[in-house]
C-alpha cells in the first residue's frame, strides 16, 4: 500500500515536465511524421494524403547525365578498392609489428585486387559480374582482417588513407561518381543543395570547434595564474545572442571597413569579399560559429579535465614523461567520454545552423546560388514563406534521420572505448 503510494508520488513529480515533453516534443514528433505524408498547400484542415511523394519531391533528381544506380556502382567499386588497399597497407604495418595469422590473405587479396584495378576502374560501366566480384573481395578482406587491431585503433589515419586512395581511384577512372551526381542534382534541387551546404558547414565547423575548445580547456586547466580571467573571456561569446553576434560579425566581415580585412592587410593579404562569395559562404558562417561556441565546449572539456585523477599525472612525471606524452597517453584516453559528448552535442548543434545565415545574408540563403541554404533554412522557407507544412515536415524528418544516423555511428564506433555513465 505504502509502496503504491510512493509510486504515485514519484509519478506526480514527473507530471509537469512530462506533460510539456509530451505536448511539445513527443506529440509534435509523431504529428510531424504524420504530416510529412500529406499535401497541405491549401490549408492544414484540408490535407490530402500523398504517401511518400513529399519525400520523393525532396529528392527529385531532375535532368542528370547518368543514372543514380550507375553512380552508386562506380562509387562502390572505388570505395572497395580504397578499402582493400588500405586494409592491406595497414595489415603490412601490423605484420611488421607482430606475426599475424592472416598474412596469406593479406598478400593475396591486394595482388588479386591490383590485377583488376586498372581495367575495371577505367572501363567498367554496368558490368554486373565485376561489380559483384568487387563486393565479394571487399567482404573477404574485411572478414580476414576484422581481428586486426592496428587500423581500428588508428581510425583517423585509416579514414585518411581511404579518402586518399578513393581520390586516386577517382582520377584513374571515369568521371562518374555519387559525389558528382549529388552535386549535379543539387543544381536543380534546392533541398539536396541544402544537405550539401549543411554537411559542408559541419565538416568545417565541428573538427575546428573541437580542436580549439580542447585547446581552451587544456589552457584553462594548466595556467597557474589568471585562470578566472581567461575562463570568462573564452566563455563571453557564448553569452551573447546569435542575432547580436551575427550582426557583430556582419560588421567585422564588411568588405570595405571591416576590421578583419584590415588585420589581413597587415600581412599584405588583399581584402577578402567574405559576404559576397558563394564559395566562402559556409566558411564565413563557420568562423562565426566556432567563435561563438568554443568557450562553452571548452568549459565542458575543462570540467572533464578536472575530473581526471591527478595521481596518473604524478605517476607519469616520475616516469619522466613529457607533457606531450602525458597528453597522448593519459589525458586523451581518459577524456574520451567528454570528447564523445562534445562531438555529439556540437554535431547536433551544427546541423541546426540557421540564424547566422539569416542575419549575415539579409534574410537570404547566401549571397547567390543558394550557397547559404542550410537544411533548417529550407525547412523555415517551405514552412513559413510557402506554408507547405507537409513538405517542411518531410524535410525536417530527413534532417532528424541524418542526425540520428550520425549519432548512432558515433555510438557504435566509440562504444568500446568510451565509458559513458549516465
Amino acid at each position, binding site marked *: 500500500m505504502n509502496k503504491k503510494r510512493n509510486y504515485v508520488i514519484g509519478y506526480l513529480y514527473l507530471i509537469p515536465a512530462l506533460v510539456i515533453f509530451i505536448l511539445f516534443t513527443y506529440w509534435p514528433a509523431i504529428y510531424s511524421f504524420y504530416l510529412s505524408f500529406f499535401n497541405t*498547400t491549401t*490549408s*492544414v484542415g484540408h490535407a490530402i494524403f500523398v504517401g511518400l511523394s513529399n519525400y520523393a519531391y525532396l529528392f527529385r533528381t531532375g535532368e542528370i547525365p547518368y543514372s543514380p544506380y550507375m553512380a552508386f556502382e562506380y562509387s562502390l567499386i572505388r570505395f572497395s578498392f580504397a578499402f582493400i588497399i588500405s586494409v592491406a597497407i595497414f595489415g603490412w604495418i601490423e605484420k611488421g609489428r607482430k606475426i599475424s595469422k592472416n598474412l596469406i590473405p593479406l598478400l593475396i587479396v591486394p595482388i588479386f585486387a591490383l590485377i583488376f584495378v586498372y581495367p575495371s576502374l577505367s572501363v567498367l560501366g554496368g558490368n554486373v559480374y565485376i561489380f559483384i566480384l568487387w563486393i565479394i573481395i571487399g567482404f573477404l578482406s574485411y572478414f580476414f582482417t576484422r581481428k586486426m587491431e592496428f587500423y581500428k585503433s588508428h581510425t583517423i589515419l585509416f579514414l585518411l588513407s581511404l579518402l586518399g586512395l578513393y581520390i586516386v581511384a577517382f582520377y584513374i577512372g571515369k568521371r562518374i561518381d555519387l559525389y558528382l551526381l549529388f552535386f549535379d542534382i543539387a543544381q536543380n534541387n534546392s533541398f539536396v543543395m541544402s544537405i550539401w551546404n549543411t554537411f559542408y558547414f559541419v565538416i568545417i565547423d565541428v573538427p575546428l570547434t573541437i580542436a580549439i575548445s580542447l585547446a581552451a580547456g587544456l589552457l584553462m586547466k594548466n595556467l597557474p595564474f589568471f585562470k578566472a580571467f581567461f575562463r570568462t573571456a573564452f566563455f563571453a561569446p557564448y553569452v551573447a545572442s546569435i542575432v547580436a553576434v551575427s550582426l557583430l560579425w556582419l560588421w567585422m566581415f*564588411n*568588405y*570595405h*571597413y571591416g576590421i578583419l580585412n584590415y588585420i589581413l592587410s597587415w600581412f599584405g593579404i*588583399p581584402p577578402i569579399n567574405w*559576404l*559576397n562569395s*558563394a564559395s566562402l559562404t559556409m566558411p564565413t558562417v563557420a568562423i562565426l560559429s566556432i567563435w561563438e561556441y568554443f568557450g562553452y565546449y571548452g568549459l565542458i572539456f575543462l570540467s572533464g579535465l578536472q575530473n581526471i585523477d591527478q595521481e596518473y599525472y604524478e605517476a607519469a612525471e616520475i616516469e619522466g614523461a613529457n607533457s606531450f606524452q602525458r597528453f597522448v597517453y593519459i589525458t586523451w584516453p581518459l577524456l574520451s567520454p567528454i570528447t564523445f559528448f562534445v562531438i555529439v552535442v556540437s554535431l547536433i548543434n551544427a546541423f541546426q545552423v540557421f540564424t547566422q545565415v539569416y542575419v549575415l*545574408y*539579409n*534574410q*537570404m540563403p547566401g*549571397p*547567390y*546560388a*543558394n550557397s547559404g541554404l542550410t537544411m533548417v533554412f529550407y525547412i523555415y522557407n517551405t514552412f*513559413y*514563406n510557402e*506554408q507547405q507544412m507537409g513538405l517542411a515536415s518531410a524535410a525536417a524528418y530527413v534532417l532528424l534521420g541524418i542526425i540520428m544516423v550520425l549519432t548512432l555511428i558515433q555510438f557504435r564506433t566509440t562504444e568500446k572505448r568510451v565509458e559513458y555513465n549516465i
Partner: protein
Amino acid sequence: MRNKLIFLVSFALIFAFAIPVFAQPVVVTFWEGMGAKLGTTLQTITNLFNKENPDIQVNLVYLGSGNEVDSKLLTALAANTLPTMAQVKGPWAAMLVSKGVVAPLYEFPGFTQLASSIYSPLLVAGTFNGKIYTLPFNRDVFDLFVRPQMFEQAGLTYPKTMQEMAQDAKLLTVVQNGKTVRYGLGFRTTYRQFTAVAYQFGGSYISPDGKITINSPQNVAALTFLVNLVKEGYAYAKFDYFDNELTTSSVAMLLGGSAELTYDLSDIAGQSDGLVMVPIPSDVTFKPMLHGQNIAIFNTATPEQQQAAWKYLQFLLSPDIQLYWAMQTGYIPVNKQVADLPQWKDFVAQNQNGIGTIMVGLDQSADYAPNLPWWTDAREAIRTAFENAVHFTMTPQQALDWAQQQAEQAYASYNAK
C-alpha cells in the same frame, strides 16, 4: 414630480449607456511593412485621420519589412484571421483574389472618381479579370543614380541610352595598380534590377497573347549587356545594398528604386558629392519599371469595417496626403493632382537629387511583375538565373532558358491544382 424624477433618471441612464455604445469607434486593422521613417510618416498621417474621424480607429500593425507581411497574410489566410486591410504586392494580391477574400474596391461608393484621379499604369497591378480589386499606395520607380562630381570631373553628361551608359561606365572605371578602385556601374543581383533593365531593351515576361517569354531575345540582350559590363570589369554586381560602395565612392552609377533616395541612400544624398536621380537609360521606348505595393481590403471584415477602411484609403490617396507622403518618402504621388500643386513644384525645384524624375514617363510605365498568382516562383527563377549569369556559372541564354523552363513548370503545377 416623481414622474419627472423617474423620467430624468431614466434619461440620464439611457444617456450614460448610450454614449459609450454610440461612441464606440469602428476599429480598422492595417497590416503594413513600413519601417523607419516610412513608418513614422504613415503613423503621422493615420493619427490625423483618427483625429478627424472620431468614429473610426485605424490601428497600424507593423509586421517588419521585407516579405514579412506576405508570409503573415498567408498564415492568416489559412487560420482565417485576416486583418481589415493590408499592403500587398501584385502577384500576392492575385493569389488572394483567387482565394476570394479581397473585397472588390470597384463596388465602393466614390470609387470611379478616385480611380480616375490615379495614373492609369499604376492601376494595372490591382486589376484582375478587368476589375480593380486593390489600389496603389507605396509605389516607386526604377531609376539610375549617378554621382554628379564624378561625371563633372570626367567631363561627362548623364547617359540617355544603354550604349551611352556602357560607355560612361567604362570611362568612369578607375584602376590603380591592377586593382579596380572604382566601378562605373553598380547593380544588385535582384529580380527587380534585371527587370528594370530588360524593359529598356524592349523585353517583357508575358507576351500579349499570354505566352511566357522569359528567354525572349530582348531579355537575353539585356542580360548579356549587364553580364558583359561585369565581365569587362566596368560593373560591380552583388546581392546586398550598396551603402559602403557609395560612401567609399567606389561606384559612379547605381541602378535603384526612387524610394531608396530618402531611405537607404539618404546619407549619401546629403553629401556634397551626393547623388542625382536620372531616368534609367533606354534603347527602345522608355518604359520605367514600377515597383511597390497596393492596398487591399478584405471581405472577411464586417461591412462597417470595410466602409471605414475604404474611407481611410480614400484619405490616404487624396492629393494633399499624397503630396506629404511623396515628399517624405520618395514614393510616386499616385494622385494626378499632386503634380499641379505649387508645393510639389517647389519641392522638385529645390531638391538637388532630381526627385522630379519619378514623374518622368509614368504614362509608359509598366509593373515589375505580371499579376499572376504563380509568379512568385517564376520571380525566384529569374533572380537565380540573373545571379548565375552575373557570376558566370551560366551564359545569359542558358540562364534565361532555365528560368523559362522553371516558370513553365510553376505555371503547369499551378494549373494542376
